[in-house]
């Protein structure tokens, strides 16, 4: 009876811990440096995520240096460092529990919007339980299954963000095509009308004393 209660409490505890899987997908605007912090509860958790730079202004130059991204562990070590990217995926095993920083640095002064998604996955194992509790293998399997599904969800968020960027590029191209061609027609017509007016003026005054 005692063991059954302990097992039930262990199961409920594990259920509550399982509830702690977190999803957070947000878009931030970065002017210079922006840091997002996340708490990793137990060491050995797999932190995975991705970020995509949603272009704030799609301007002339394609030599934008990109955004710098770094992940800093609670001990101050830099776990991941990317320079000049427009989006990437990352995944690492947390060496210790604590507060992790995900920092973005924008080298230019125009603010950029970044869609960020971070997922911390925890699979219960024998390490961090008390001595007289043990992990039910089915819970481990369920946790692994859930982590696999969360990996698919993470990938989907990345695809969704990239699709949004692609869509913006497409709509910008469409607007540019229409705008620039109509502008070109108007300018062409105006230039030719101005040409004709100018030639008329050349001839109208000087017809008397000059034959061009």
């Amino acid at each position: 009876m005692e063991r059954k209660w302990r097992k039930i409490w262990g199961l409920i505890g594990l259920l509550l811990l399982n509830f702690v899987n977190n999803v957070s997908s947000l878009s931030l605007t970065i002017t210079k440096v922006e840091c997002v912090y996340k708490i990793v509860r137990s060491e050995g958790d797999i932190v995975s995520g991705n970020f995509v730079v949603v272009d704030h202004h799609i301007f002339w130059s394609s030599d934008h240096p990109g955004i710098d991204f770094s992940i800093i562990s609670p001990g101050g070590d830099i776990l991941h460092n990317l320079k000049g990217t427009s989006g990437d995926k990352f995944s690492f095993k947390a060496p210790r529990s604590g507060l992790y920083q995900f920092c973005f640095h924008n080298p230019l002064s125009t603010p950029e919007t970044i869609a960020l998604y971070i997922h911390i996955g925890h699979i219960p194992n024998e390490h961090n339980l008390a001595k007289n509790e043990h992990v039910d293998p089915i819970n481990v399997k369920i946790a692994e299954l859930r982590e696999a599904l969360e990996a698919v969800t993470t990938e989907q968020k990345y695809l969704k963000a990239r699709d949004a960027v692609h869509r913006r590029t497409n709509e910008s191209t469409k607007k540019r095509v229409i705008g620039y061609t109509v502008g070109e027609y108007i300018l062409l017509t105006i230039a030719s009308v101005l040409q004709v007016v100018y030639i008329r003026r050349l001839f109208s005054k000087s017809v008397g004393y000059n034959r061009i």
Partner: protein
Amino acid sequence: MSGNAKLRRSVMFQAVLLVVLMLASSNAPVGDAIWLNVPPTGTKCVSEEIQSNVVVLSDYVVVSDDHGHVPTISAKVTSPYGNNLHHKENVTHGQFAFTTQEAGNYLACFWTDSHTRGAGEVSVNIEWKTGIAAKDWESVARKEKIEGVELELRKLEGAVEAIHENLLYLRDREAEMRTTSENTNARVAWFSIMSLGICIVVSGSQIWYLKCYFQKKKLI
């Protein structure tokens, strides 16, 4: 260096927070949230592109470093059409929940209040859950009297359905984008040919007009 001091402060603070969390973790609905630093001047905004008919749950708490003075913030959540969904001033914590009516960019902005300014950056713990993550599994478990492995499998089933919906959404968006691309492609071709045509027409009419004009002026 201020970076080091900040790091030390955050390390010490997260240690304290871990202890607090371990003590209070029995019923706390802490779904692992994001921390942000709200600057003393200006607003910090987070946004997400959400489809319509999605449940959004959010909870924000000001994280206080020093024990005496807890800074307060104000929060405002707007829908893509500009409707104000949640607005609170001078609070240390708050929550909001809504079901999205329209698809678009939902914006949640935080700023420090004028009388607690000068304290530097305020750390805010924001928990933001949308869709399947915002589902209240405890009430489902209570209502249908399921628990344990069955509840976990239900959650997994919910996650799979969410993945399926996302895939369909992505496929529809890709189809729309393909239509737009093909449209733009056709337009580029047509507009270029038309531009050539307009060029020829305009220069032809120029020459014809000038010829008429010179003939009228008896120069030719």
